Structure formats: C-alpha cells, structure tokens
C-alpha cells in the first residue's frame, strides 16, 4: 500500500516538476527571443558581410556514404554568404561513390597539405583541392573510417585554418546567411562565447533549388512532420530558454559554431562517443571551468539548417537508439560532472536536468505504462483518475507545442500559408499517441544496446535525397 502511494506521488511530482520546468523555459525563451528580435537586424548582416576584419570561419562537414546528396549540398555550402570562409568536407572512408562524385564534380586533385593532427583521429589518406578557381574555398579530407561522426569531424577541425568552425552534416542545407547570423553572438559578447547554435528543421517536403531552400513546407509524411515539431520545440523552447541563464546542454551536431582553440584544447569530439555534440560541449565547458575562464553558449532563434529527417519508423529507430545510447554513454563518461558543485551550472543544473528529465524519462514512462497494464489486467484501475492524469499531461503537451509554433511565427514566418501552420499544429494533438511512445521505446532500446555493448553504426541514415528543381 505504501509502495503504491509512493509511486503515485512520485509520478505526480515528477510530471509536475517537468511541467514546471517547461513553464519556466517558456518564460525564459520568450525573453531571449524577444530580446533577439529587438536588437538584431538585417543591417547587421550587411555590415558584417562588407567588413574587412570579419573573422574567418571553417565549415566542417563529415560525409559517410552520402552519394545521393553530396553534390547538391557541397554546392550549397560553397554559396554561403560570408566574407571569409572555407568548406572542409571529410570523407570518412565511404563505401559508396561519395569521393568519386566529389572528385569529378569539383575537379579535385591531391595536394601536399601541412595537416597537423591536433586532435587524434584515424589516419588521413589524402587531402584534395579543386583545380577550378570557382571552388577554391573547398578542401576535401579523405580518411580511413573512424566508426563515428566525431572522428571525422575532428579530422576536419585539424585541416581547418580559421579560428571558428561551423560543424554541420553534409546532408544539411544551410540558409545562405547562416554564418552571418551565427557568428554575431560571438562578436558582440564581451564574455568568451565558445559555441553558438541555431534551429534545425526538416527539409523533406521543402522546395530546393541550386542547393538553396526556396520554399519551406512542413513534411508531408507524418514521421518527419512529428520531428519538425519536436525540433522546433527543442530549439525554440528548450535551448533558447536555457541560453538565457547560460545553461545550454548541447549545440546540435547538425549545426553548431565553435571556438576552435577551445574545442581543440578540450580534446575535440570524443571519437568513441555517440552523443558527440553534448560530449563536446561538456568537454569545452569543463575546460573553461577547470581553467577558471568565463564562458557563454548562445543560441539564436532562427532556422538556419534543413536536414533530411528519418522518413520512416525503421530509420527513426536507428537514429534514436543511437542518440539514447549516446546519452547514457555521456553520463558514464562524464559521471564526475553530475551533481558536482565544482562544475557550477553544468554540474548542478544542466546535467541533473538532463539526467532526471531526459535520461530517466523513458524508464519512468515505461514503468508507468507497465503499471497501468498491470492494473487493467487485475481490474484495479481507477478510470476517472487515469483519464484525469492523462488529460493533465496531454493538455499541457499540446499547449507547449502550440506555444512553440507561435514563437516560430514570431521569429520568422517560414511557412507561407496558414494551412501549413495548421498541419504542424495537427501533429501536436497526435504526437502523444503515436510519436512519443515510439521515442520512449527507442530510448529504452538504446540504453539496452549500450549496456549490452552492442555496436552502433556511424549514424548513417538511408537517404532519399532532396528533390531539386
């Protein structure tokens, strides 16, 4: 009896504290978004674009078996608007024709490159540059497969020449002004900004021309559309909210701008990590705290990157299993940070929050589900109470999703038609029934795979490729 009461109260307080944290994040994100909207303008982009002293940025994009999308996306990266940048593509031992396609399209030849291995990686086979002056910003690093995206990214960082690097996936399409928008928080802050993130969205049903998004549309298929909503919520509500109090847990591997010096000193990405983005931020923050240096991690509320989301449940399963394994791995590797006052906000807010509400959530939800099944089976369930508790979390989840759709519409109206916005709102009502249970299941599976030491792949995703007009 005591056990049942304890469990009921525990679940209630757990969900109530989660709800309270979301409300707090909603307020925080509103403040940061309004502040960003008020004090940034397109004139800033022009000023920076025409500046003689803008700092250089290296765009680093690892590629593994990306033959379907590589050409369009490298073209897209080369047309970014910024006064001083280079594009470093790392071919991580692809087994398909990724490298051949790059060589043919961009007239690449091997060059003697003074490659310094500041971060340890799998051996680099060769470095290629284009004989066509149009592509003089492009560097291709061909290396042996390291098994993870982290290892490939590290090789790209080693080959890069500028003080900041933007890490992205080669299947991502970036907005032309991404670099102009993302570098600004670094330039404007007196405190050292070690990383900047921005919002990612699904490219699945968008219109793409010459490697540029010309019309943003919500994905037609349900799985990517659920993810579109999930991403907007994660970026605009969570990360923007946390950035107000400098507690950003991670800067996405799909799109993140980093201070190279700090990233290298922190040891770069962990080549064995499956949550390389959160791992890198943890290392960089730990480095800054250990060296008693002040730091900031910033987010901007703009969607700068469009990525091809898993189009079906099988591919989603692979992706989320890997992410979940990565999360558990992170807590194992950086266990000394958790609840450790030495690591300040990282140890007392960021890690505990991620541990309680991200890592434990799938397990608690699974236990809850099993309890309900047990109660139903033995006819002990109080249906009135069960429905009430369900509505409690369901109504709140829908409210939060609609709130982020509003944030999204306030920052920039990416969808041209209201009917497209409605399509996104519709999935907010369906998400708790269809998408969320899948995510919980994949999460549990990821933990299980990590604990049973089953090998996880590079994070490859079967791609359909983007239709370009």
């Amino acid at each position: 009896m005591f056990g049942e009461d304890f469990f009921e109260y525990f679940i209630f307080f757990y969900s109530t504290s989660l709800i309270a944290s979301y409300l707090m994040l909603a307020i925080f994100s509103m403040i940061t978004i309004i502040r960003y909207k008020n004090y940034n303008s397109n004139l800033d982009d022009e000023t920076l674009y025409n500046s003689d002293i803008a700092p250089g940025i290296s765009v680093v994009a690892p590629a593994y078996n990306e033959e379907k999308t590589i050409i369009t996306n490298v073209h897209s990266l080369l047309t970014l608007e910024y006064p001083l940048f280079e594009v470093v593509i790392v071919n991580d031992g692809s087994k398909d024709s990724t490298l051949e396609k790059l060589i043919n399209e961009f007239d690449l030849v091997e060059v003697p490159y003074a490659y310094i291995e500041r971060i340890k990686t799998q051996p680099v086979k060769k470095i290629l540059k284009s004989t066509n002056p149009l592509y003089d910003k492009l560097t291709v690093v061909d290396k042996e497969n390291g098994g993870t995206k982290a290892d490939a990214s590290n090789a790209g960082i080693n080959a890069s020449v500028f003080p900041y690097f933007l890490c992205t996936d080669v299947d991502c399409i970036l907005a032309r002004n991404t670099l102009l928008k993302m570098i600004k928080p670094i330039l404007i802050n007196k405190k050292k900004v070690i990383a900047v993130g921005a919002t990612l969205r699904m490219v699945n049903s968008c219109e793409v021309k010459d490697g540029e998004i010309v019309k943003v549309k919500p994905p037609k298929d349900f799985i990517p559309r659920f993810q579109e909503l999930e991403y907007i919520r994660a970026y605009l509500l969570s990360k923007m909210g946390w950035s107000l109090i400098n507690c950003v847990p991670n800067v996405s591997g799909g799109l993140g701008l980093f201070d190279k010096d700090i990233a290298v000193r922190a040891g770069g990405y962990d080549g064995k990590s499956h949550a390389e983005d959160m791992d890198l931020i943890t290392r960089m923050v730990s480095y800054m705290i250990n060296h008693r240096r002040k730091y900031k991690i910033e987010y901007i509320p703009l969607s700068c990157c469009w990525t091809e989301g898993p189009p079906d449940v099988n591919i989603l399963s692979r992706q989320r299993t890997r992410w979940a394994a990565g999360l558990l791995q992170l807590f194992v590797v950086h266990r000394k940070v958790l609840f450790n006052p030495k690591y300040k906000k990282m140890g007392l807010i960021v890690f505990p929050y991620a541990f309680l509400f991200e890592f434990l959530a799938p397990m608690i939800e699974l236990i809850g589900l099993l309890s309900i099944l047990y109660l139903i089976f033995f006819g002990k369930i109080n249906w009135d109470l069960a429905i009430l508790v369900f509505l409690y979390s369901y109504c709140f989840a829908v409210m939060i999703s609609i709130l982020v759709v509003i944030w999204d519409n306030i920052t920039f109206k990416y969808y041209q038609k209201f009917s497209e916005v409605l399509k996104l709102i519709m999935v907010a009502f369906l998400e708790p029934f269809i998408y969320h249970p899948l995510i919980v299941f994949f999460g549990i599976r990821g933990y299980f795979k990590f604990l049973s030491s089953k090998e996880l792949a590079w994070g490859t995703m079967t791609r359909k490729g983007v239709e370009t007009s």
Partner: protein
Amino acid sequence: MGILDFLIEIYYEIGTYAPIIQVAVASIIFSVIITISMFIYLSVIRYKHQKNINKKNQIRPQIEKLFKDILFGDTIYHEDEIYTEYTKIVGKLSARKIKLAIDVLLELKFNSPEKSRRYQSIVDALRFETYLEKKLDFSRGSTKMKTLQKLQQLDLKSLDSKVLNYAYSKNKELRREARYSHLQLSENDPYRFLDEIKGELTYWDEINLLKFLKIHNEKNELSNLGKWINYSENDSLTVFLIKAAGLFEQIDTKEIINKKTKSKNIAVRTEAYKTLGKLKASEFEPKLIERFFSEKEECQLAIVNSIGLMNTGNAVSFLKKAYLEAKSISLKKEIALVSFTYKSNYNLFEDLKATQNGFDRTIFNHIETQLIKFK
C-alpha cells in the same frame, strides 16, 4: 441552472477532492484556455501578416516605379509632386506608409546598380525626418536603435543633436548605436566618443567603428588617428586604432605606431609590428629584427609578417636564422610563407626547402601549392 452556477458547483465539488486531483484539474483548465487563446492569437497574426503581404505586393511595385522615375528618370520632380504622386498610390500618408517608402528607398539606394543625387528630394517630400524624429522620441529602446540605423542608411545629418541624446543612454545597445550614428552623422565632432570608450572593445564594436571610419575615409574626411593612438589609455582601443591606421594606410602615424612597439601590452605590440609592415615603414626593419629574438611568439609572428610586407630584400639572413632557430610550427610556416614571396637575388625559399624533410618539407610544399588558397 445557469453556466455560472454550474461552474460554482464544480468549483466547490473539486475543493472536496484530493490535492493531486485539484492540481490536475486546474492545470487542465489552464492549458485548455491558454491553448485556445494562443490559437486565436496565431490566427490573427497570420491573417494580418497575409493582409500586409497582399497589400505590399499590390502597391510596392508602383512605389518602386515612382521612386525609380524620381531618382533615375529625366523628369525633375518637385517635392509637392512627389508627395501627390505617392499619396495617389498609397492614399493618406500614415506612419506605416512612410515606413514602406523608407524601405523602398533604401532598397533602391543600396541594391540598384544606378546611383542618384535625388534621394534627399524623396526624404524631404515625404517628411522622413519628422517621422524618424517622432520614432526617436516616442518609442522603446529597440525601436530607437533601429531608427538610428535608418538615419545612418539615409545619412540624415540634421538629426545629429537627437542622436546625441541617446549617446549616454542606460540601454547599452541603444547607447552603442547612438555613438556609431554620431560618428557617421556629426559634422562638428564625429570622433568625440573615441575618447570616451571604456573597457574592452568587442569584435562587433571594431567592425562597426571601422565601417564608419571607412565612410569618412571614402569622403577624404578621415582624421589622422595618430593622436588617439598616442594618448588613448585603453589598450583595446589602441589596438583597434593601430589596425585602422594600417587599413587606411595612414603613413603619418608610423612614428607613433613605432613607439607602441615598446608597449607592455602584447596585443598592442603585435598590432604595432603588423601595421608597420602594412605601412611599408622599412626604416624600422632593423629594429624589428633586433627585437625579434627577445619577443613572445605572437609578436615574432607579427614581425615576420611585417618584414614580408616591407619586402626590402635586406632581411634574407635574418629570415634564415629565424627559421633555423624556430621551434613552433606556426612560426616556421609564417617564415616559409614570407620567404616564398620575398624579393631577393638569393632564393631563400628553395634554399630552406632543400634542407628540410618530413613534415617541415610538407610545409614548404603546402605553401608553394597555388591550389591552397588559405595557407
């Protein structure tokens, strides 16, 4: 029984339930009300947005056509005519319509291949000044800041005194923008705030300050930066001004910059060394060489870079000695880079390259590979 009585009854009934149920019910009611309100709000903002877009799409091409005619056409429009023609398109003049006119004018000013001397006639005819002045007087900080940016873009010098009001604002973004605007728009004392900059400059400050100094430079109105370099006690500002003097090739500042090579601050010394090279101040080359071996690595890199830019042909033996004694890869690379383009009868680059092997040899191969753009 009315709805109100029903709600009151529910309220009292819920009061008898367990606290968990009370919290859950309150939360559900709260979520439903907020969700419906947000949905209505979203519908309204989308509706207004669509209406604005439709209206703009309808009248913007007509405004563009009129402005192009005024700015680049053969007919000279009088202010009254501009006003009449514009109101014929948009109807009665309102703040929103003036804002639209400003946006179209700026679009034409900065993106049109043709240039005109008649921008001011549109500014005067549609009373942009009055509109912007009101915006400066009666709006919140962020709007004021964006208004100041419009003043800069329109180059409206007449509102200089208004700008000055905000140069000491408590709002730091507004204060910063007002000082930038003053630097561009003031005709009496544009550099006044250079003396008042306290603390470290951000990169963004440098980019903006340089932008406005560039505007003065293009009009041949840029003052000699030497006096601020000489007297500024703010090292961060000194570094920036030295950099600016180099970019604007202010040869007269070289003596002052040379003094700064003795500064205790490494950043000041580094920038001073680099700038002497940019100014081709070759008379200081022997001193730079003399100081090289006792300097920190950042300064050593700057000295080598500077000697490369001076390119006198007299520093071959120094470069060779510096290379052979260099321990860091960055310094070796910088010396190799300078020796590659160094003008001299003696081919230092090939000589050094011939003696190297392994990674050091790769550095030389890397530098001489034309396909590698960023060395």
